[in-house]
């Protein structure tokens, strides 16, 4: 259990962690889990387990009924969580109950945030959340709501895609904080067998216009792939493969994170 950490310190956890890692030349291991999957109790144990197993950042996914950016594995985990009664408010309860020192990033579609009300960002911070990532709110899409989120207490993680032109990459980098999430390939989330051949070029293009740490996700599913990405970027995001492991058991998911950590540290 942590806290008595001040709320401001919680919000700064993400930025500080990324800077520390960069200073020590270590790569960030960013792990995605769907809140409430496979159930509430397991979800808390999972967050705690993967924090202990070496995750540097944990993305806590808010399940949504219509996740258009997600492939079959995260869709199914979201549906299972919703069927179990998971909500945004209960996601925040999981964050608070897990009480880990690793920075937590709320990973959500926009509609649950809008429905939750203007104070959702403050309630998130109070639950121990450091950052926020909104899948369907690209830079420039809704300046008023982007200002609401960006001007709030959480670090606002923005996404870059392989289709993003370089001028737009620069604009995205200047609007984000914490780190920039680079989507490795066209398509939705989900494990893939190989890394895209143009990934090094995409990372280099982004690096040229972005001073924030760059974490690469989408399709990274094995320790070998994670190690390969670690040679290019500041961090690697693993989602669907971890959710798939969690579907089998918390222990299996934790062991998987340990194997990813070992691969990155050997990189």
């Amino acid at each position, binding site marked *: 259990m942590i806290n008595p950490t001040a709320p401001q310190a919680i919000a700064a956890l993400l930025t500080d962690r990324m800077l520390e890692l960069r200073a020590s030349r270590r790569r960030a291991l960013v792990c995605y889990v769907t809140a409430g999957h496979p159930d509430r109790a397991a979800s808390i144990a999972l967050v705690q387990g993967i924090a202990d197993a070496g995750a540097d950042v944990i993305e806590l996914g808010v399940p949504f009924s*219509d996740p258009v950016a997600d492939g079959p594995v995260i869709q199914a985990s979201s*549906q299972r969580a919703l069927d179990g009664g998971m909500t945004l408010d209960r996601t925040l309860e999981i964050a608070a109950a897990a009480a880990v020192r690793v920075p937590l990033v709320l990973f959500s579609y926009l*509609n649950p945030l809008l429905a939750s009300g203007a104070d959702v960002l403050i309630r998130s911070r109070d639950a121990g959340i450091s950052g926020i990532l909104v899948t369907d709110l*690209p830079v420039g899409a809704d300046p008023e709501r982007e200002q609401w989120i960006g001007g709030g207490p959480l670090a606002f993680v923005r996404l870059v895609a392989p289709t*993003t032109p370089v001028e737009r990459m620069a604009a995205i980098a200047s609007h984000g904080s914490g780190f920039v999430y680079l*989507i490795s390939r066209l*398509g939705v989330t989900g494990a893939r067998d190989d890394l895209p051949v143009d990934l090094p070029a995409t990372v280099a293009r982004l690096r040229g216009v972005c001073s924030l740490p760059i974490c690469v996700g989408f399709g990274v599913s094995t320790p070998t792939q994670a190690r390969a990405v670690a040679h290019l970027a500041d961090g690697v995001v693993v989602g669907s493969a971890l959710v798939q492991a969690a579907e089998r058991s918390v222990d299996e998911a934790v062991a998987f994170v340990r194997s990813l950590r070992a691969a990155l540290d050997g990189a």
Partner: protein
Amino acid sequence: MTGHASETGRFGVYGGQYVPETLIPALDELTAAFDAAVKDSAFMDTLNGMLSTYVGRPSPLSEAPRLSERVGARVLLKREDLNHTGAHKINNALAQALLAQRMGKRRIIAETGAGQHGVATATACARLGLDCVVYMGEEDMRRQELNVFRMRLMGAEVIPVTSGTRTLKDATSEAIRDWVGSCDHSHYIIGSVVGPAPYPRMVRDLQSIIGREARAQVLERVGRLPRSVVACIGGGSNAIGIFHAFVADADVQLIGVEAAGKGLDTEEHSASLLRGKPGVLHGTLSYLLQDEQGQVHPAHSVSAGLDYPGVGPEHAWLKDSGRAEYVACTDADALAAFGLMGRLEGVIPALETAHAVAWMLAQRGRWTADEPVLLCVSGRGDKDVAQVAKTEALNQ
């Protein structure tokens, strides 16, 4: 009154581009390509030529004397059911397929509910030699077996969608997921005035031929504008299509009929404008059926084409501004009107259209007998005959 949305992609506060970052460049490319195409006379000549010689436009304006007597007004039918493929959907699908060809995209993605948009897209792709993939909810494939067969006959690949409610909402999500992974070589032909900008404006512009023709036809026939223009609303493309030419005519009432399903006060309806709250689904901010936590609430309608929890953002804006009036009609009343219109006029309407007919039948006294009221017959009911026969057998 603006509502053109060409600069901002918005209608008032509604609309927008709430999509994964990957799609932003594809939407920018599409916006530029559409705006250039409509200014290119060669493109417009090709489109207008095909609308005339392939689709069969202009569609006729029919008198409906026996229905008029029941309604207590001079009902005029805008016959989109007589278009090739049997609905208004071809106006949009054909134009977007031509646009895709112009953009050099050889693979087309579409979603479909009742199957009419899927059939229209499969048709346009066959005609232009493009590959076609249609996502359709498993539940809708069961309800609209005939249209599944028609799409496959024309060489389209129909992919069953088994997630969520297995209807139009999930078919649309699946089509978007496909496009997120294929936008470099595929074009997504969305079937209604929904989705991220520029789709609501683009599909509106492509469907507005319905209202432009109808306005001229009514003026020529009757010598005045209609008192009311009535259309059914799921996503709202036939309604926007017929409304658009009349928006500036302040004396013309615009009336959209949503699906009340088993009743507006039940949990089973598709009345997003009457019972929803603003929210974001499929890239756009509009009225949406959703719960307190912002999860999308499943819609219900006997008509697969209206069975959608969202609605086009321009309708949200027309509602808030008071320019259009939105009402609803239940499954049971639509089914009754479906049969009645066949018996009275020899026109079997789509179940979607039957909602608008049913609402009019309940309005006796609203108009005088000689007042012209324009009804958009969005499609023909052939696709619904088997389902209605089953429903009637169950009720006997």
